[in-house]
């Protein structure tokens, strides 16, 4: 990939005095701002994954004003280049956020060499005393979408444009289908693997195929807004991915799962400023505000809205877990007994589809 690497240092001189009181006098007197670096796998303009991380970085910078100074490097390929970029950032920053799964091993290697720098790595599983992991329970958002799809789909068939059959994606398909089948027991999810994270043309072809084969509501686990746009053009409904995609489907978008990393970034920055930062491995969801749902679209009736809000509230209160038994696989074998909740460890390596998925 062409390595367009940009570096921008953003110093926003926002209300420093106001924030100082909240942070604590001792730290506030420290003259030099704490430096924080971010590494993005994609362009900040992708309107998806990297874009949302950068939105959180901006929120963070705004909140802390001149107490911190953030910088980012975008379009960093998940290869040898990543380690070099992370090392460069570690040389000048007190804290580094590496925001993609493929940065895990390079981050670990650099973390060993810079024991005083705090590393935060998204969606991986390796921790060290100075390296923490964080991820979001996107499947909770998928369950809300599934509930709405079950009620809104007249055909009872959803189309799902998927990227690669990894647990993260399989988990989303399953959560979506389980929730939809609670509303409509005959609900079916047709999955097409685009075998890419990003190819607007092919994503659009996949969406068209699904619509032609009877799906009247689409979900996606790829990164471009092409699926939403195709749904709008063909007059069917769709769920957005990563960010609010309303602009591409003003009529079509039911809602969108929005990644909100700001609460976590603020918490960890605060801890670093206070000197209480410790390594951790978190998996946050709707409750913590890491997974959000975009405002509902025009197709959402009051009844659907109420049902969706109820599932959301149930997930927040802990009353509802999207992976609660009985759960059967595609062949009808019971995989999880009635009333049982799937442990996180099983969820993280799920590689089979629930009943109703056609993949």
């Amino acid at each position, binding site marked *: 990939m062409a390595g*367009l690497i940009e570096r921008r240092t953003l110093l926003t001189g926002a209300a420093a005095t106001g924030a100082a009181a909240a942070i604590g006098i001792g730290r506030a007197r420290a003259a030099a701002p704490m430096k924080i670096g971010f590494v993005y796998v994609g362009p900040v303009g992708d309107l998806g994954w990297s874009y949302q991380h950068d939105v959180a970085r901006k929120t963070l910078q705004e909140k802390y004003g001149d107490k911190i100074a953030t910088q980012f490097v975008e379009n960093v390929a998940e290869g040898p280049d990543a380690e070099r970029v992370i090392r460069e950032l570690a040389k000048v920053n007190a804290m580094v956020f590496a925001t993609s799964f493929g940065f895990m091993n390079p981050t670990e290697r650099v973390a060993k060499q810079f024991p005083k720098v705090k590393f935060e790595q998204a969606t991986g599983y390796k921790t060290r005393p100075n390296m923490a992991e964080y991820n979001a329970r996107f499947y909770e958002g998928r369950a809300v979408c599934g509930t709405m799809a079950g009620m809104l789909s007249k055909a009872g068939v959803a189309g799902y444009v998927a990227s690669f059959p990894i647990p993260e994606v399989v988990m989303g398909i399953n959560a979506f289908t389980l929730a939809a089948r609670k509303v409509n027991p005959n609900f079916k999810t047709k999955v*097409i*693997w685009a075998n890419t994270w990003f190819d*607007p*043309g092919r994503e659009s072809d996949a969406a068209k*195929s699904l619509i032609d084969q009877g799906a009247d509501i689409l979900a996606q686990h790829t990164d471009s807004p*092409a699926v939403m746009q195709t749904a709008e053009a063909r007059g069917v409904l769709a769920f957005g991915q990563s960010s609010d995609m309303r602009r*591409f489907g003003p009529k079509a978008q039911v809602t969108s799962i929005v990644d909100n990393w700001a609460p976590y970034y603020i918490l960890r920055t605060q801890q670093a400023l206070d000197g209480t930062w410790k390594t951790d491995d978190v998996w946050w969801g709707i409750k913590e505000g890491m997974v959000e749902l975009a405002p509902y679209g025009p197709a959402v009736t009051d009844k659907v809205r109420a049902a969706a809000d109820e599932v959301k509230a149930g997930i927040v209160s802990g009353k509802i877990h999207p992976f609660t038994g009985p759960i059967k696989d595609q062949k009808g074998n019971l995989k999880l007994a009635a009333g049982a909740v799937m442990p996180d460890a099983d969820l993280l390596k799920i590689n089979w589809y629930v009943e109703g998925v056609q*993949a």
Partner: protein
Amino acid sequence: MTGGVLIPLLQTVVTSATPLLFAALGELVAERSGVLNLGVEGMMLAGAVFGFAVMTATGSDTLALLAAAAAGTTLALLFGVLALTLAASQVATGLALTIFGTGLSTLIGARYTGRTVPPLPRLDVPGLSELPVIGPLLFRYDAMVYLSVASAFAIGWFLRRTRGGMVLRAVGESDVSAHSIGHPVIRIRYLAVLFGGAMAGLGGAYLSLAYTPLWAEQMTAGRGWIALALVVFAAWRPGRALMGAYLFGGITVLQLYLQGSGLVAIPTQILAMVPYIATIVVLTVISSASARSRLSAPACLGKTFRVAT
């Protein structure tokens, strides 16, 4: 059920093949003159972003397409100066052009991310478009689809039947001989390369204006490279390029439909390989035919030509 799915399937194939066809035809003409330009992907991206930008600014399809062609041509001109006038390596220059086009389109496109434009309008033919089966299959596309198909025939006619086409081929087969009988080798190659750039630009614009009317970084997603492969697949013949683009588009879309139909229990990764496997198979078959000698590449393809002084 089958008939209901078949027509939209074929329509999807047509839109999927069109950008490939434009880019492949342009490159085919350049290669027939003996120039290998590996910058197709970069020129497509430039066409995609400039077409989208002009569409956003003016709302005119025609101006947007002209801008896209101009953007592709400008990049091709840069290639020409380096590889033809300054006699730099065509391979290295072409690769650099792809990287340059990717970067340039990202820079220009930054402010267009997240915006959308109305798709190119369908050219409905009164009477014909309403015909059952034939109507939706043949007469319900935008003008660019017809232009791409017409270009394939026009280029075929030009290369075979016209004096200009024969000179162009002569330059590609033996630059020294063409030069010795007085043909301006470099000037002819320039024209062929610029034409290739314009076509690549149009192919890119088809993506950002019709296929998925939006701008996203690197939205061509490797189609420029597939177009390059199609030229070889087509054995440098426009008619075969037309077939190849539709075959490739067809198999790509068909494998998506097969997944959605749930009829085939084949792992998706294998289905995704099918278009490429089919390409290799067809290549093997056509190159082992008795007509092999007629299918060979232009003899001077990729060779630098310098006028002896």
